[in-house]
């Protein structure tokens, strides 16, 4: 049977599906309504049960029986969940300690636990995928946020299984995003890539920041943090406040406290916010906000940004905090990967440039879809394996491995330290480098391996926190100095190796000497020097 594997991003607000297309690209597939983003919403209305786009459409009419935002409740106990039962939220009850929704369905009261609701949504997603592909889906990879516990992952896996999905693997969201950008994934063979990325995932309801290192293509999460108060919804809320103020100014009707009115404004503001990411001005119109009065206006991007200054500042704070925790300077970050719709906001990106003036930002993937694509990429990688093998490969005996603490490298002519194996490299590690010989006619070369240490971070300048930021020009003045790339100095001489009897008569740098440095799990080091032309080589192994 041909294997058809998909990647599913089950987001807290939206879900999406991606699949490897025959042309080698990953396609995010559209559902029956033509939407690439399937709202993570389940609704019950009358005799019918809805999921996805249709469920969202009836949300305003039927808020009591429309379930959303249930992803973060997966695997939680009822006591842990803050219940907000009011007119616009469905009632929550406890069923054997598991949070459950009480809904009116077929004129009867029904209780659905969170895992059951998840199953309903995933079933819908699965059906959409099969309808689009016209084939049976044989397996899927899902992604979860880094803060999901083992128990939460287990519950998600069971819910997905109940939905008829063969879950191949559940991976971390930032890892999926990195995979989508092929971050640090060298071609199958060839040069190892040692890079560090900052992955910023701003979805609708949370802001996840992850520092991810790729060493020879193997990912390690160095540090991760998330803030549920930051997220697209928080920014929308700012817009809602703006509109509400404006509305009050225009009509003298106060809508604060009017949940229904605010919900209507929020739906319109969401669209306005997305438009503001593309154009400096966007209209916003809400019909019949309150007391039969409509709101028609337009919002300036600058005004929105000013209103959201505090939120943007908080984002940067979180990023700086995590860098500090990871003991990294901004210069040590090689790439920034932006995930989630809210990262499209121009201000968000320009504020990011305050910290990282020159770092590459990766956002060529549709930022909403990076995780989905990463899941599909992982799914297509492991499609051919037995499920037991996949499970076995994610066991701790393989995934927990020693990492180097300090960088290993060589010392150049003017005593600068050149890293060969950086810190945070999972062991065993192997690196191959090519050198020339220093002088003409030189017949012996000397290779010394050192361990290094990062130079102390430059003292942090006390930043004057500017709460009210004026024009963009002012900001540019701030970015005078570039954050330096971290430098290292040698500390310990680890080993010396000499390759003798090289072919005579070569010009300086003409001979190519290949140095292979291997470090195994115990820290045992093996160095091989090989002259490429003559094949002359020497191999040395530490005790």
């Amino acid at each position, binding site marked *: 049977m041909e294997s058809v594997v998909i990647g599913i991003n089950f987001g807290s607000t939206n879900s999406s599906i991606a699949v490897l297309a025959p042309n080698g690209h990953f396609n995010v597939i559209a559902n029956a309504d033509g939407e690439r983003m399937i709202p993570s919403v389940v609704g019950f209305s009358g005799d019918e049960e809805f999921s996805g786009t249709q469920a969202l459409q009836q949300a305003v009419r039927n808020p009591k029986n429309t379930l959303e935002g249930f992803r973060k409740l997966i695997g939680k106990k009822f006591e842990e969940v803050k219940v907000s039962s009011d007119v616009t939220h469905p009632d929550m009850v406890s069923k054997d300690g598991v949070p459950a929704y009480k809904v009116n369905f077929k004129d009867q009261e029904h209780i659905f636990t969170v895992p059951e609701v998840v199953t309903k949504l995933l079933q819908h997603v699965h059906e959409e995928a099969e309808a689009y592909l016209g084939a049976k889906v044989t397996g899927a990879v899902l992604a979860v946020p880094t803060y999901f516990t083992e128990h939460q992952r287990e519950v998600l896996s069971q819910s997905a299984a109940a939905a008829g999905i063969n879950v191949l693997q559940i*991976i971390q969201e930032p*890892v999926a995003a*990195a995979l989508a950008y092929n971050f640090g*994934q*060298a071609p199958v063979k060839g*040069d190892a890539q040692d890079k560090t990325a900052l992955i910023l995932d701003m979805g609708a309801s949370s802001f996840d920041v992850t520092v991810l290192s790729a060493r020879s*293509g*193997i*990912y*390690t999460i160095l540090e991760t943090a998330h803030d549920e108060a930051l997220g697209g919804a928080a920014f929308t809320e700012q817009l809602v406040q703006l509109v509400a103020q404006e509305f009050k100014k225009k009509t003298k009707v106060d809508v604060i406290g009017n949940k229904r009115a605010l919900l209507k404004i929020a739906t319109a503001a969401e669209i306005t916010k997305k438009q503001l990411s593309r154009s400096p001005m966007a209209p916003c119109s809400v019909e019949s906000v309150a007391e039969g009065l409509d709101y028609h206006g337009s919002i300036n991007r600058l005004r929105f940004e000013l209103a959201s200054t505090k939120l943007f500042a908080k984002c940067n704070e979180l990023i700086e905090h995590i860098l500090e925790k990871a003991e990294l300077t901004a210069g040590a970050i090689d790439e920034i990967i932006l995930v989630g719709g809210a990262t499209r906001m121009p201000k968000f990106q320009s504020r990011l440039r305050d910290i990282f003036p020159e770092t590459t930002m990766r956002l060529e993937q549709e930022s909403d879809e990076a995780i989905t694509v*990463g899941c599909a990429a*992982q799914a297509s990688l*492991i499609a051919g394996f037995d499920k037991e093998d996949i499970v076995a*490969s*994610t066991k*701790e005996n*393989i*995934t*927990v*491995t*020693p*990492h*180097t*603490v*300090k960088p*290993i490298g*060589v010392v*150049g*002519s003017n005593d600068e330290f050149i890293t060969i194996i950086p810190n*945070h490299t*999972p062991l*065993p590690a*192997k690196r*191959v480098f*090519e*050198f*020339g*010989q*220093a*002088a003409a006619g030189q017949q*012996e*070369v*000397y*290779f010394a391996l050192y*361990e290094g240490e990062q130079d102390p971070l430059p003292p942090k300048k006390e930043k004057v926190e500017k709460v009210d930021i004026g024009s963009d020009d002012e900001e540019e003045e701030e970015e005078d100095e570039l954050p330096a790339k971290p430098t290292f100095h040698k500390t*310990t001489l*680890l*080993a*010396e*190796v*000499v390759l*003798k009897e090289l072919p005579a008569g070569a010009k300086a*740098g003409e001979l190519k000497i290949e140095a292979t440095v291997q*470090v195994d*799990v115990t*820290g045992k*080091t093996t*160095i091989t020097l090989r002259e490429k032309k003559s094949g002359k080589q*020497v191999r*040395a192994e530490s005790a």
Partner: protein
Amino acid sequence: MVMDFLLPSPPKSWSADKTSAFHAKITAPVNASIQPAGRHFLAHARRHIHSRTFSEDEKATNEAEAAAKAANGTAQDDSDLGDEPEDPAMLRRDPKDWKDQDQYAVLGLSALRYKATEDQIRRAHRRKVLRHHPDKKAASGGLHDDGFFKCIQKAFETLMDPVKRRQWDSVDPAVSDSVPNAKSKGDFYKLYAPVFLRESRFSNTQPVPQLGNAESSQEEVESFYDFWYKFDSWRTFEWMDKEDGEGHDSRDDKRYFEKKNKAERAKLKKEDNQRLREIVDLALSIDPRIKIFKEQANKQRNAKKREKEEAEKKAAEEAAAAAIAAEAAAKAAEESEKAAREDGKKNKELLKRAVRKEKKNLKALIKDNNYFLPAGQTPGPVEVEKQLELLDALLDGAKGLDQLEAVRKTLEDGVKSGNIAEIFKAEVAKRS
């Protein structure tokens, strides 16, 4: 990764004899979780599970890749047909002379010739048609010249018809018919193997045993020559027929040509058989293996002969030795017999002498002891005579030296004890 870094000479303090020195271990690594995603992680897991090193893993994956490639490699391509240039002279040929054209060259198969499979011919034909089809030529602005296309069709027809293909293969001028020169120097196998391989194509029985090499066994070599001397060839020479049998109005003409052609064919066939025979003869005559086998056979025969001779010689020698030994033994036996006889005589005499001496002793004993009469009795001549007679009887009764000695002892004891008369009487009574 190429480093912009040059390796210096070793420092002066470096002692010349060592190649490496390790000074410190790296700072103890700490455990951390890696993320189980991406192909590099899969490689890591694979290495871990199979406990392979980097280079072992690389080798293993390369092998697996190569195997996968080989499995996929069955997909057909026309690389086996080669890409030979078309001779402009051939392109200008008149299709009427198709019989004289090189059927294989026309299809671009001159490298394969009789080895070409039906599938290869089909594909080659297709390729040529695609290039030389008159429609194609007309489309590209050329003249409406389908001469070569007709040649292609004729060649294809010929080669796809098994009978016609055999006829053509039989006379294919591009395949040499030559008989190797008997005097040509060089490796016999290299010289003759291709010849036999080439001739094999005419055999009705397949597969055809090949020349083999220096290691072939005698049996193989013999069966090889046996096969080739009985070679059953399908080679025909109909292609060389002077005129097509058809196209003659006159029956006589037709018959005449037919007869002539048949005779010609028979002649050619005979010549060809002769030629093949020559090749085999030649090969046999200079086959180094045959020489070796002959030598071996010779040696074996000689060895047997020598063995036989040796055996005979040995037998003769043994017989002579036995005769001598028998003679010696006979002599020795005779001598010992003689000695024994002489010894016996001597003994007898000695015995006789001893017996006589014993008898004498006894007679002396009887004389000295009052003729064994009871004490006080004076021996009168009668008693003496009587006692001596008794003694003689006793002596006659006691046969042999031992008994005489025993008698004497008894009597001597009797003399000592004084009751000799009674003992004598008892002894006489006992012995006589």
